[in-house]
């Protein structure tokens, strides 16, 4: 398996304070990788850095044979303006952006694909509903339908199962497994360790520094989890410049 995404001594952060510190490692094609760590561990920051939404303070992220458009990203608490007068169908349909672009029309074939995606997440019958009337779980299902349409090789999910009931989680996890079966690469930030153990073959434990990265069973040990919890989350206003950089 070849490395699809390579982190090289990557440091990401805000106003010079690192949120992800000297991370190195590789995501391989076809990985189903869980990113685990306490709040403030740098999971979201890592994803933003990977997607180029923030610039590294040092180090780099390298992609091999991957364009930006090949990565689909579902941010945590997606910043969606639910008051906007648009219905679920149109909201899901923009997932086809890669094939329709700015101006391309949505033809009969596209319509079938959209209906299929809405059906796959169990929202058939809700097409005309304004997005503001959807529950949190329905919205998350809709966003997964949009991901389905994006048909991306790499899918990045930032805490996708927050504030969602068990049945919805089961349905959405089934979709994730289907993507895995289709040889797509999936990276997901999660807090439910049982779910990680049962579903994700690989895990990355992050607590600003990398704690462990490998087979889930080797990573999520009691010792590692304790280490992650103790790693300081403090944001030291007067922190000195990092010496590792100077070395």
């Amino acid at each position, binding site marked *: 398996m070849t490395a699809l995404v390579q982190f090289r001594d990557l440091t990401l952060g805000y106003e010079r304070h690192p949120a992800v510190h000297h991370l190195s490692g590789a995501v391989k094609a076809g990985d189903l990788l869980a990113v685990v760590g306490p709040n403030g561990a740098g999971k979201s920051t890592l994803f933003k850095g990977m*997607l180029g*939404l923030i610039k590294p303070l040092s180090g780099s992220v390298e992609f091999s044979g991957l364009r930006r*458009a090949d*990565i*689909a*990203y579902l*941010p945590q608490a*997606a*910043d*969606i*303006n639910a008051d*906007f*007068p*648009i*219905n679920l169908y149109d*909201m899901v349909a*923009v997932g086809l*952006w*890669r094939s329709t672009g*700015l*101006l391309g029309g949505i033809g009969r074939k596209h319509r079938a694909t959209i209906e299929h995606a809405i059906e796959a997440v169990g929202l058939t019958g809700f097409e005309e509903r*304004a*997005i503001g009337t959807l529950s949190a779980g329905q919205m998350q299902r809709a966003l997964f339908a*949009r991901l389905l349409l*994006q048909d991306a090789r790499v899918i990045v999910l930032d805490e996708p199962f927050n504030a969602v009931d068990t049945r919805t989680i089961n349905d959405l996890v089934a979709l994730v497994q289907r993507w895995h079966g289709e040889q797509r690469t999936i990276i997901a930030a999660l807090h439910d360790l049982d779910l990680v153990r049962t579903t994700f073959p690989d895990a990355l434990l992050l607590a600003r520094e990398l704690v462990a990265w490998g087979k889930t069973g080797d990573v999520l040990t009691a010792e590692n989890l304790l280490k992650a919890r103790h790693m300081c989350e403090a944001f030291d206003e007067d922190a000195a410049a990092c010496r590792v950089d100077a070395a």
Partner: protein
Amino acid sequence: MQRDALMFYNFFLAPFGDVATRAALIAVVSLSLGAGPVGVFLMLRRMSLMGDTMAHAILPGVAVGFLVGGADVFAMTFGGLIAGIIVAVLAGIVARVTPLKEDASLAAFFLISLALGLVLLSARGGDAEIVHVLFGDVLGLDARKLMLIAAISTVSIFILALIWRPLVLECVDPQFLRSVSGAGGPVHLVFLALVVLNLVAGFQALGTLLAVGLMTLPAVAARFWARDISAICVLAILIGIFSGYMGLLISVHSGASASPSIILVTGAIYVGSVLFGRVGGVLRRLFQGKHLEA
């Protein structure tokens, strides 16, 4: 029966036999076509007041155009366009590089701009010019001005169609737009340019102050009648056109000034929509009837 028909004709149609009134109607219809949808997007981005701000901001440009080219519409329009874009871009830059938010920096720049515009106008022209620029002269439109207004509304509709998808997405889910396309930033700027263009078109007919009315009021009124962005845009256009027609009628029959009459009709439609609107109107909320079974 024939008498009724004649009365109907005299009241509703005969006023538009007059060339100036007909030109005014054409102007208001064209304005509504462009400004209506632009106002809807302003509203949905919570930028309704920005239309007002920009209307003031274009004044120094109009004044410079007036000083250089006399009463030539194209000089004044071009000046207004440049001034509006300068203010929008400067405000955007200050918002990006300092902690000041865009609304605050826009407020600062428009005040400077407005003061500058008034100083320039009063230095050269008399009060009559200032009043003319501020309140417009919808019954004094010549063919050149009409062409300009029509051209601007044509361009607006065309550009809106072109940027529709990213513009909607930028309002609904900006993060998603950023993840699939780099169109977000440019689209925002193009949209601001459309706001300025439509205001510039509007001030020819209605004046800088009332131009905002035809952009903002139909949009906020339409919001009370539809749940879908396309429907809201179409409604906003229709409300604008209807207000223009009714406002001109009232003005002709009562002798009231035309531009404010038009905006007052729009205002009345807005108040009616707030009260009786199907989507979230006040009465609808008060008397919603018994709850449903499921």
